């Protein structure tokens, strides 16, 4: 869409060329450079997302706790009193919370980011900036909530006397993979939503089904082996299971499945970004 090059005698004057949309590696590089120029917007808008929540509601930041904790309490009541679900020897509350924490990060990223372009039509039709910033800020805000809600996990671990091991450091790459995947989903869904508003209705349902297709409220070990090959196609399985493995069981993650999830996430992120940037050129015309 636009390029920057220095003109010999006029170092300050940038030349931008705007042409019909095309797919090329050079364009991808230019797009990424443009995103770099707008990093202050990414920062300001992300801080804004977090701030607005504090200002608008009475409970403000407490919602970062309330959401995962209430789900944990509900699932704990249902699955340890009403219908018994094995939790591999650890108390069910901490078993489910360890998985709900990264899941909530993913699901609130995707749920909020999907409508981000359509809900900011007034920006999109009025001002130019790299549009991917809008969905990305929701992912960053959800990551912030994740960090806040992690303190509850720390409290639960102390209460139930679960000891951390060195393997807990794997949380960092696991969250990085999860962030790539959440960002990829967010870019893909938000760009598609501009043309097909059905996406906005479908996403909450999709996330609900997805929750049950991921080992969150039940252990991976209770999934029958004959279904595993299909079940494992869901990248969230490896991500959530690895998270639980390194935090709760203090053991090594399954390197092979985690690597596969990483490859899938990175490739999906790349494709989503290219798709997003291609649609971006006409977004303002149809939003």
């Amino acid at each position, binding site marked *: *869409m*636009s390029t920057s090059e220095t*003109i010999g005698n*006029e170092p*300050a*004057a*940038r*030349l*931008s*060329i*705007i*042409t*019909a*949309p095309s797919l090329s590696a050079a364009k991808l590089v230019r797009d990424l450079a443009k995103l770099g*120029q*707008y990093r*202050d*917007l990414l*920062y*300001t*808008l992300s801080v*804004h997302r977090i*701030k*607005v929540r504090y*200002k*608008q509601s009475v409970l403000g930041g407490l919602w970062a706790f309330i959401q995962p904790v209430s789900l944990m309490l509900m699932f704990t009541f249902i699955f340890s009193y009403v219908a018994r679900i094995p939790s591999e020897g650890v108390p069910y509350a901490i078993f489910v919370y360890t998985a709900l924490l990264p899941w909530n990060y993913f699901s609130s990223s995707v749920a909020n980011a999907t409508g981000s372009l359509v809900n*900011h039509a*007034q*920006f*999109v*039709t*009025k*001002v*130019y*900036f790299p549009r991917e910033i809008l969905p990305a800020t929701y992912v960053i805000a959800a990551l912030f909530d994740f960090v806040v809600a992690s303190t509850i996990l720390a409290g639960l671990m102390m209460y139930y006397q679960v000891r951390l091991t060195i393997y807990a450091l794997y949380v960092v790459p696991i969250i990085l993979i999860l962030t790539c995947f959440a960002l990829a989903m967010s870019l893909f869904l938000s760009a598609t939503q501009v043309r097909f508003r059905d996406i906005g209705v479908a996403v909450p349902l999709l996330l609900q089904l997805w929750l049950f297709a991921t080992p969150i409220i039940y252990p991976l070990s209770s999934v029958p082996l004959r279904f595993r090959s299909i079940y494992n196609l869901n990248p969230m399985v490896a991500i959530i299971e690895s998270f639980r493995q390194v935090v709760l069981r203090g053991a090594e993650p399954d390197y092979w499945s985690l690597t596969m999830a990483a490859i899938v996430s990175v490739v999906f992120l790349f494709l989503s970004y290219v798709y997003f940037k291609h649609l971006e*050129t*006409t977004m*303002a*015309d149809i939003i």
Partner: protein
Amino acid sequence: MVNLTFDRVSKKYKIYTEPQEQKSRSSLVNKLRALRGHSREFWALKDISFTVERGEALGIIGLNGAGKSTILKLLYNITTPSKGEIRIRGKLSALIEVSSGFHPELTGRENVYLNGSLLGMTRREIRNKLDSIVEFSGVGAFIDSPVKRYSSGMYLRLGFAIAAHLDPDILLLDEVLAVGDAAFQAKCIKRIAQLRNEGTTIVFVSHNLGAVESLCDRTLLIKEGQIYKSGATRDVISAYEDLLLRLSPTARAMAESSASPAAEIVSINLFNSQGSRTTMFATGEAMSIQVELMVHRPIKDAVVEVYFNSVFGNLHTHFSTETGNRIDLEPGPMLVEFSCPEITLEVAAFDVEGSIRQRGTSIGDFIDRKHGAVLNVGRGKPVHGVFYTPHEWKVLNRDGPSC
């Protein structure tokens, strides 16, 4: 040195239409068919080429729908051309009013950071300019209050003040002079003049012919997506005025319209108190509007109306025959005159739209509706607030009225 070049630029929009012929009962089937490509192509711009030299101020004028705002959107990179190339040398910013992006719960200061970065400023730049932005906007101590407590004037002024601090090489202006009260408009004009004197290249898209004339050296007149005339501003404006006066959609336009409505608006003409046809008025001045209709089939209980829309498309006021006697239309030509003793609209350009509908139908359910004229309201009776209210005054004795 050339600052900006449009090189054979065309822009195509796809207009998605529901399939007319094989209309199925199920709307889902229709929608899926529409996806398959029931779209019409519409060329908003056709092969436009022009250049703007550094330090030059270029005006772009034309009727609504001529393609002016498409040019702005392309320049501002909100959308991309379908063909051709645009070359921009230097930093380009638009002086647009961004308060619609304000978040009501955040303070003025927080919103300045948010909107400033949306417009491409860095946090450091905003920090350095914050005092100046606050001063320009005149919101003073309110800068640390949530903007939901602002008056609508403060809201607009703050939004505008941010955009006024962008320091671009090329400045895009779009009907900016319609924002705020007279004092604030004067401030904006001063800021634009300052930027101009500093050698900023300016592209100004407007209906406000007076403003274009005072600001621009050279002007393009866009008609139906093409450059109709370009040259010295004075000459182009008179060509535009000729175009406006000839604007009555004639028999040709009727022949072109595919569907045949029961009645059509043929023309809308504005007359001043001397009875001469013009588009230039002032607040407080008398005006009469003649709507020329061609009735094809009898219409029982018709209502003829005239709408005054702002350049942003907001309806400001309307004239209507709805309140008076019932009119039944018989086939043939017809002329309806509205007379207005005092124009209460503020200084701005308005798009005058005529409509004909049946009484009892909702607004929107028109038999015909046409953009007919442009009304330029100039400075007349002072407007402080939103509109002028006709009023008289006299001094009474302190003891009360004496007989």
